[in-house]
């Protein structure tokens, strides 16, 4: 593996890892494999893009949008990201209220929720194609030059920012779950929702918090991927298999596990691109998934299936 491969793999892996953390949390607390997580990523990217364009349009005459050196984007993107996260969270909460919460209240099996999510993901993705067409979109048209990092590795400032931001988010989230009352409540509900209610925890509130975190991270992952690659309606759906592979590899419910899983998938994809060619990239996640299911279905940090 060349050093540059390592950089490419890590950068791709951070997006997968962030998305996978959201998936892993919803999986362990809401107890179903949420097929809409990929589409929340895509919606997050498009919603942020829409807000960014709106801000740029409003301010067109006032302040020219100059990039924040050394990055490729101006101040509108971070602002739009916050708004995009809020909107993605609203979308996820609305989806839960309209669909998943009703099925849960009816006592439907987890697999029915999986199926409902599967149907909703189709509607969400096709909805994006209808609104924004399938032509790719971009947050920025600035070209960035990769700078040498030593050992023959190069990375653009945007890529380094993504790596740094991911590290901060993962650490913050890990502390939230292990050290705060909210995190304690999330762990309790993930182990036994009925007992959590007996202890006096409002399970519906914990479910809301879980959607907020999962959808917020999905939006960040979508914007990162959109910034470094491009924005397409299928970008989230294409990430879904890597997300599931990373989640199961890391062990469902484990935040560090999901991040490590994401990085492993990112690196495997980089390796597949080098060894087999770019057209086989997506096969890497499948191979990892099969290997985990054969060797250790509970994952690296899992608690035994």
């Amino acid at each position, binding site marked *: 593996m060349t050093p540059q491969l390592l950089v490419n793999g890590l950068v791709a892996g951070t997006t997968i890892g962030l998305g996978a953390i959201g998936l892993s949390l919803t999986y362990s607390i809401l107890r179903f*494999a949420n097929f809409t997580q990929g589409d929340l990523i895509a919606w997050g990217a498009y919603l942020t893009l829409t807000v960014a364009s709106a801000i740029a349009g409003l301010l067109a005459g006032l302040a020219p949008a100059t990039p924040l050196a050394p990055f490729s984007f101006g101040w509108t993107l971070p602002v739009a990201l916050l708004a995009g996260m809020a909107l993605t969270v609203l979308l996820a909460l609305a989806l839960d209220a309209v669909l998943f919460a009703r099925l849960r209240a009816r006592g439907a099996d*987890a697999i029915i929720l999986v199926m409902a999510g599967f*149907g909703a993901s189709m509607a969400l993705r096709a909805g994006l194609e*209808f609104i924004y067409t399938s032509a790719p979109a971009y947050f920025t048209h600035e070209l960035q030059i990769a700078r040498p990092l030593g050992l023959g590795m190069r990375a653009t400032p945007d890529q380094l920012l993504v790596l740094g931001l991911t590290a901060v988010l993962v650490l913050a989230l890990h502390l939230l779950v292990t050290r705060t009352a909210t995190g304690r409540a999330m762990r309790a509900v993930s182990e036994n929702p009925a007992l959590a209610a007996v202890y006096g925890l409002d399970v519906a509130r914990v479910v809301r918090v879980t959607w907020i975190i999962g959808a917020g991270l999905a939006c960040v992952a979508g914007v990162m991927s959109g910034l470094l690659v491009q924005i397409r309606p299928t970008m989230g759906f294409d990430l879904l298999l890597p997300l599931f592979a990373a989640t199961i590899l890391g062990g469902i419910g484990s935040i560090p596990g999901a991040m490590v899983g994401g990085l492993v998938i990112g690196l495997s994809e980089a390796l597949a691109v080098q060894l087999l060619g770019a057209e086989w990239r997506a096969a890497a996640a499948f191979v990892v998934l099969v290997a985990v299911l054969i060797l250790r279905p509970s994952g690296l940090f899992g608690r035994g299936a």
Partner: protein
Amino acid sequence: MELLAYAAFFLTVAMTYATICLGLNVQWGQTGLFNVGVAAFVGLGAYVSAILTTPEAPGRLGGLGLPIAAGWVGAALAGGVLALLVGALTIRLRSDYLAIATFGVAVALQLVFQNAEPLTGGAFGIGFIPRPFGGLQRQALPFAALNLALTVALVLILYLALERLAQSPWGRALRAVREDETAAESLGKSPLRLRLEAFVLGGMVMALAGAVQAHFIGFIAPANYLPALTFQVWAMLILGGSGNNRGAILGAVVVWAIWAATAALIAHLVPAGEQARASSLQLVAIGVILCAVLLWRPQGLLPERRAVPRHLGRP
């Protein structure tokens, strides 16, 4: 005359979808196994049969020129083997791992269809797949009618066979496993084995359906086996009534009719540049239908004859 031929064409395609739904119904309706890789099984059957039956072509492996029937048998066997591999890997694990694994298989096989050019023809796919009653191809009506008769006969035979199977001790044990695993276990049935058998049987039927469809259309390409196909088939089965074989057939005809009618509307009413966009609304509708049925009529149009299956939850 033309209208009749078109009606026959429409119904023939609907019958191939009905076959896929019958296969899926063995897995989901009878057994409660959620297969998110329907497109993979259908596509595998189509490609295997095409490779076995097409005439030799330069630059492509396969092209064995075998009879159509041999292609169909090969397709069913390939579907069974794929189902066996996926099932052996995941059926002992939690129920949604099967969904995730079949989703992965669909992604992986789509890559093979796209990229294994020497075998699959890459993005262009495989053409000149022999059609049943191909000698009559120039006479539109008899050709269409005979093909329709063939697919109707296939659906009928499968329907009768699957109904018999559902009433057999095997079918009853299968439903017992779906409703209450521990109770079934105490009857001396191995739930894992029963589920695996049902998954393999369903996979074989779906792959056979893929082969039948490929031979009727005459050419195949990777774009036919995208996830949208899986969504369509699921909408058919859930709307029709999971667990009910007649529901599976009805759902296939109804959803395919809605699909074909809206596609025709879009082609006539929407300007060419906007057609791709308009057809994405069709997919939105499929997703919404699937969710709406799960919410408001989980038993579908034709419910299973027994009480509402417990795994659907109380409506």
